[in-house]
């Protein structure tokens, strides 16, 4: 630590002695350059990263909900049952109609023992 201080001072002195060798006056040049520039108050920037993260989170939640519904859904629900019953009834009706038609045209013997 005792050695550190003089070295620190040397660094300080050496750097502080470094100054621009001439006097700078760029005021006119800068003001001329600004003639073609107009100051722009920044608009509220859209944070695309945040939006992407939020969208991904929404997608994950939606998929999760769907998956849960898929696992827990009761497929023997009344709606499905009534639909199935209706289809069954329709099928029977078609069979009966077909049988009647066969009898009518005399083809029913083909099926008799």
């Amino acid at each position, binding site marked *: 630590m005792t050695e550190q201080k003089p070295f620190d001072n040397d660094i300080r002195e050496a*750097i502080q002695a470094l100054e621009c*060798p001439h006097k700078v006056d760029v*005021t006119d040049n800068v003001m001329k350059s600004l003639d073609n520039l107009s100051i722009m108050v920044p608009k509220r920037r859209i944070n695309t990263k945040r939006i992407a993260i939020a969208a991904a989170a929404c997608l994950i939640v939606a998929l999760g909900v769907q998956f849960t519904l898929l696992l827990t859904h009761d497929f023997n629900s009344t709606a499905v049952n009534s639909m199935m019953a209706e289809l069954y009834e329709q099928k029977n009706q078609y069979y009966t109609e077909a049988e009647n038609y066969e009898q009518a045209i005399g083809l029913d013997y083909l099926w008799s023992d």
Partner: protein
Amino acid sequence: MIQPEQEQAIVRSIIGGQKEQFALLVKEYQQIVANLCYKLAGNKLDTDEVTQQVFVELYISLPRFRFESKLSTFIYRITINVISKLLTKSSHYVSYDSVILENRPSGPTEEERIIREEQHNKLRKAIGKLKYEQRTAIVLYTYDNFSYSDIADVMQVSLSKVESLIFRAKKNLRKLMEEPSGNKR
């Protein structure tokens, strides 16, 4: 010299459209920017051109200034970024002219003064060989009114990073100072 409250009023008026007020800021800070530029880039870059570029950047970025820190901190930050971009195009190593006589180191005898001057010149050569980040940290460290947190604020890095940069800069300077003069990197 512009007072801080006055400075804020000037900045607000520039943002409000009074472009001519910007000349006051240029006059106030141009030499400070030029000196920092010389400390960081030596003879590698044209100080006048860099200073001009810094103020054009400042004008464009002024609406982003939030009045939470000093305007000088904001200007230093822009200066460091502008120089960094310009130096990246070539090498980061820089060199300096011999230091002007008024800034010669003090010493009890003329002989000792000459020895110290030589040592300081060697030290400056070593500073020019540091990596840009380390050089920036060590240069800001020698500013009397700058604390570690001010340096972190200007460089936009963490406090621990500043400590590490200064530690490494000093270590490298010591190493470079121990090398014989003829040994160039």
